[in-house]
């Protein structure tokens, strides 16, 4: 197992940069002359990159023995989360749409 200081510092600085970038877009959504929907998409993509940064640089589970078990349960959890969150939003929005008269 390798435990490097440099990767922690890289992770810390990139996480701060990503947070400040997302914050800047939240308070000035019109700065890059994009509409609100695009601004929302951009900060969500920034959050996904940020979560990858945390997974790679801070959550050390990938270096342990049994890498395949750990990543296997992680991927299946992400699939369950996708099913719960995406389909809840989808179903409720369609319910809402179909009930408006």
């Amino acid at each position: 197992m390798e435990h490097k200081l440099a990767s922690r510092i890289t992770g810390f600085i990139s996480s701060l940069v990503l947070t400040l970038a997302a914050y800047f877009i939240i308070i000035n959504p019109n700065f890059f002359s994009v509409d609100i929907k695009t601004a929302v998409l951009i900060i969500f993509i920034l959050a996904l990159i940020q979560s990858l940064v945390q997974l790679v640089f801070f959550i050390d589970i990938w270096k342990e023995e049994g890498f395949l078990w750990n990543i296997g349960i992680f991927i299946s959890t992400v699939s369950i989360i996708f099913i719960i969150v995406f389909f809840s939003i989808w179903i409720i929005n369609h319910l809402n749409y179909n009930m408006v008269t």
Partner: protein
Amino acid sequence: MEEASDVAFSDAAVIEEPSDTKVFGFWVYLMTDLVIFAALFACFIVLRGNTFGGPTARDLFNLPSVLAETIILLTSSFTCSLGMLAVHRQMKNWAIIWFFLTFLLGAAFLYIELSEFADFVNQGASWQRSAFLSSFFTLVGTHGFHITIGLLWMVVMMFHIALRPLKEHSISRIFRMALFWHFLDFVWIFIFTVVYGIGYLL
């Protein structure tokens, strides 16, 4: 008979589970916790607009304090990883210093979050006001509860480092505590973006 049970419970005879098995078990727990958070996120996103004539996200959220909370939590994640590095290098004093710093940052985070909650309640925006606020307090409150547990665990681990030798199974325990703390940071990223960011924009 009595002698046999004495042997079974004495320290030498206890067969430790391999550390990797414990880490895997803890990882499975964290993943189920992630599913709980996912359900609460789905709930919040669905109920976000149902303010029942009460204050909206835009009226309530104080973004600078949320940014402060986020930066504090990211920094605490960094100091926690430095503490873990010190543990791996057998530097007890540095490990305690870094974990103590992490503890202080976590306590500062919790303080800001609770004063934000108190502020909302004083404005009449408690969890009873609307479906939006119920789902908001449930999601962010569950995260805050996890932070509280993480802080308690960190205190226990600081005593553990101070009083016990840093053998393999101790390191594995401290590693699991650090994993928990990074996991809370991971969840907060999505609270920052989905609850505060998208809640403010849309």
